[in-house]
């Protein structure tokens, strides 16, 4: 049993972590409670802000009026992204890029993906299809097939290294070992690669990726870049690890691995949540609560045959019509109607349609965020996480 936290953040994904770090960075006592590792571990690790246009921040003006970005505003978004960048550099996982300019990275299918901030290991991933580069692949690697890329990028070629293991996480773990890295570097040098750039699936270590990345680049005299892979994604795991460390460094507490068991409410205030854990339940008391449980994939929202529910507080959730209009027929038509589902909030990120005073909502559980349609995933999570933390703090300080 702990004394009440200044704020309890439910959800350990990017928005929840950014909210927690923002508050902890200003001396607040915070706790993050999470069912488990968040969905950002499955992501490319890149921070998409808004795919449309050259300057993602300018594009925000043309988003529909209910999009959560409007609650933060251009300046707020830019500040939040810079805060994120500062945090990640401190954790040894620097991000490169300009918040006012979109950039591209190569995907495992040989396509270019528009994003904004990228891990330094992907800095040189913006190849155009006619540029020459050399792919270093791994023997029988389960989730990476270089021919998908070489068929689209006509001047690319590949070589295959036998790591003795075929999974993404397994190969990444090998790179944590200095001896393995020595062998790999010697092999690359022996290939006498002509191309200016070297591409590698994103397996260059888990914790030490910076060192691995820079060593390969320096010893081979080539510009190296990682290509994001299918889950489990190393850049996604690194991103999550960095944020978690940043929070712990700021003396935030984390409660991991339990589901939310029950919510205690008194009048218009939430007082505590109880988590189920292995063998015992943990009660976490807070003065304010921030809901950052994400959308359907992470379980913040849940759909039944004909409705959408919010899973922790049973907040009123917006959803578009009946099930037959939730999805379009075309799989590739990004932007299915169901993406609009979520919690509607006021200008201070408090949920609409409820009496609760001390609850704030951020991240993709917000209604109208339409992350796939606008390709604004991590950017929206960072911006609303920081913004919700600020309004939460404002409300708290005023009390």
């Amino acid at each position: 049993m702990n004394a009440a936290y200044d704020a309890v953040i439910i959800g350990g994904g990017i928005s929840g972590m950014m909210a927690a770090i923002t508050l902890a960075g200003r001396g607040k006592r915070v706790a993050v409670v999470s069912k488990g590792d968040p969905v950002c571990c499955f992501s490319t690790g890149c921070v998409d802000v808004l795919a449309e246009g050259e300057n993602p921040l300018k594009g925000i003006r043309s988003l529909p009026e209910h999009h959560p970005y409007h609650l933060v505003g251009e300046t707020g978004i830019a500040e939040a992204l810079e805060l994120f960048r500062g945090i990640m550099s401190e954790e040894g996982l620097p991000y490169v890029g300009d918040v006012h300019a979109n950039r591209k990275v190569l995907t495992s299918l040989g396509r270019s993906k528009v994003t904004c901030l990228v891990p330094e290991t992907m800095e040189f991933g913006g190849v155009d299809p006619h540029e020459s580069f050399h792919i270093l692949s791994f023997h029988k690697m389960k989730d990476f097939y270089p021919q998908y890329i070489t068929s689209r990028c006509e001047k690319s070629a590949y070589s295959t290294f036998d790591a003795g293991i075929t999974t993404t996480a397994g190969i990444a773990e090998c790179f944590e070992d200095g001896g393995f890295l020595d062998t790999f570097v010697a092999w690359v040098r022996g290939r006498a690669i002509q191309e200016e750039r070297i591409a590698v699936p994103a397996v260059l270590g888990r914790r030490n990726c910076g060192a691995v990345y820079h060593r390969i680049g320096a010893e081979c005299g080539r510009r190296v870049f990682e290509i994001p892979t299918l889950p489990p994604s190393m850049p996604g795991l690194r991103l999550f690890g960095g944020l978690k460390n940043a929070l712990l460094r700021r003396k935030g507490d984390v409660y991991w691995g339990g589901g939310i068991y029950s919510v205690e409410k008194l009048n218009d205030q939430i007082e505590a949540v109880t988590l189920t854990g292995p063998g015992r339940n943990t009660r976490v008391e807070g003065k304010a609560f921030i809901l950052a449980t994400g959308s359907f994939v992470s379980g913040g929202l849940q759909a039944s045959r004909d409705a959408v529910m919010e899973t922790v507080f049973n907040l009123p959730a917006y959803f578009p019509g009946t099930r037959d209009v939730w999805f379009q027929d075309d799989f590739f038509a990004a932007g299915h109607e169901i993406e609009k589902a979520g919690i509607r909030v006021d200008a201070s990120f408090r949920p609409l349609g409820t009496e609760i005073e001390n609850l704030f909502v951020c991240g993709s559980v917000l209604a109208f965020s339409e992350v796939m349609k606008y390709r604004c995933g991590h950017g929206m999570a960072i911006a609303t996480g920081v913004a919700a933390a600020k309004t939460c703090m404002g409300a708290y300080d005023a009390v």
Partner: protein
Amino acid sequence: MIRTDVIIIGGGSTGCGIARDLALRGIEHCLIERGDFATGATGACHGLLHSGGRYAVNDPEAAADCFAENTILQKIGRKCVERTGGLFVRLPGDSKRYRDTFLKGCGVVGITTEELSPSRALDLVPALNPSLEEAIRVPDCSIDPFRLCMLNITSSQKRGGRILTHHTVTDIIREHGRCVGVTAREEITSGVKEIRGKIIINATGAWGNQVARLAGGSVPITLSKGSLVVTNHRITNMVVNRLRPASDGDIVVPNEAVCLAGTTSIPVADPDGIGVDPAEVDIIATQAQEMLPDFGATRLIRTYAGVRPLVQSDGENGRSISRGFRIIDHGDGLFSIVGGKLTTYRLMAEKMTDTVMAVFGLKRPCRTAELPLEGQEELSGYPLSKRLKNLEDIVCECELVTTDAVERVAGQVGTRHLGDIQHRTRLGMGPCQGGFCTYRALGIMQEKGKMTPEESMAMLRAFLQRRFKGIKPALWGDQLREEQLIESIYLGILNMEQEQ
């Protein structure tokens, strides 16, 4: 040009069964199939090896055929039949009189039945509705239609049968008023082949009229769409039927790692381009839940629909039309075999082959009921544990398919498509429905030089669309979560586009 004695059009269970029977009786033949084996109603049914119980009341003749064939297939096809047994359950409110008629009907036909008390039935299938009134046990089994077709084809290939999959028959060649051959177009290269034969058999099921029309003929069939849903695990280890007149949503069949629940019956005009309506899913799920209460909370991983080619009769609806079959002699060398069921495929093939033998004036007995299906020795059978020999390099985690298995099938002659691998290995048929392993399988196909990267991209794209079409009517709950994850992988991480 290919010359042969008998041309079989259609690679469903009937066509494959005829190929085996002809092979065993020493008749040269060539089978032409526009896709892969079992891509029509054969592969889109519920995989039930009928005991005959379902037809015992209204269609005793079909029921008798089913019961006899059920017994034969259990004997000859051990590796594609799972002896699950089946129950007909009577719930509160279901007519007791129908139960009496049912038992009487089974008695007349000779179907073995056993009356079970509710507690005995619950011992056998704990997931049953505990308020059931009673259950009747019948020898229903579950059958793998893909395997069944492959094994029949093995007998044909061993004896020199020509098998042309991914070939569409574009024309029937007629000379002096007789059908003497066909032209067929290869799907990928569009190369055209001419095949000449003395007899042409139209075994194309729901597509029977399209083929008969090429020779100016027609067949008397009615098309009825039946939709099904797939659960993410086995809720029951026995087939569960509702003890009442045939109706929507009255059956749940365990099949490998999943259960299939259905069906509906909706008249359709065109066998191509059918889909499942969300309302059908709701009907099936609601009905199945009455028999198996857990069904309501079970994740549905896919829906699909097949088209039943029923022998036409006047003024009857799809449920009451006989499930019997007919052989139609068009009088010009073309024969059509229509109607029937997966369960009676062997009998249909036997009768069709008898007809061929009569035309040729040959007397060789049918042996397909006695000889076990060939090629079963190489199959693993059902227990998943048997597939765990090589834990490394598993490509499809849901169905435990290894890289070796994919590479072996990819290397076989005739493997052109992702579907060919799926049907032969069960890759992508489990809970994630190919979300992860398809990308891998196509990567391996490229590596093996079985297809160009462009072809594999086109196939991946088509696969994702087809998969989505099957999943969309049942998107809620955990399956919606899964789907959004798959969407974020293909459209987000890989940034895959619709057209190149």
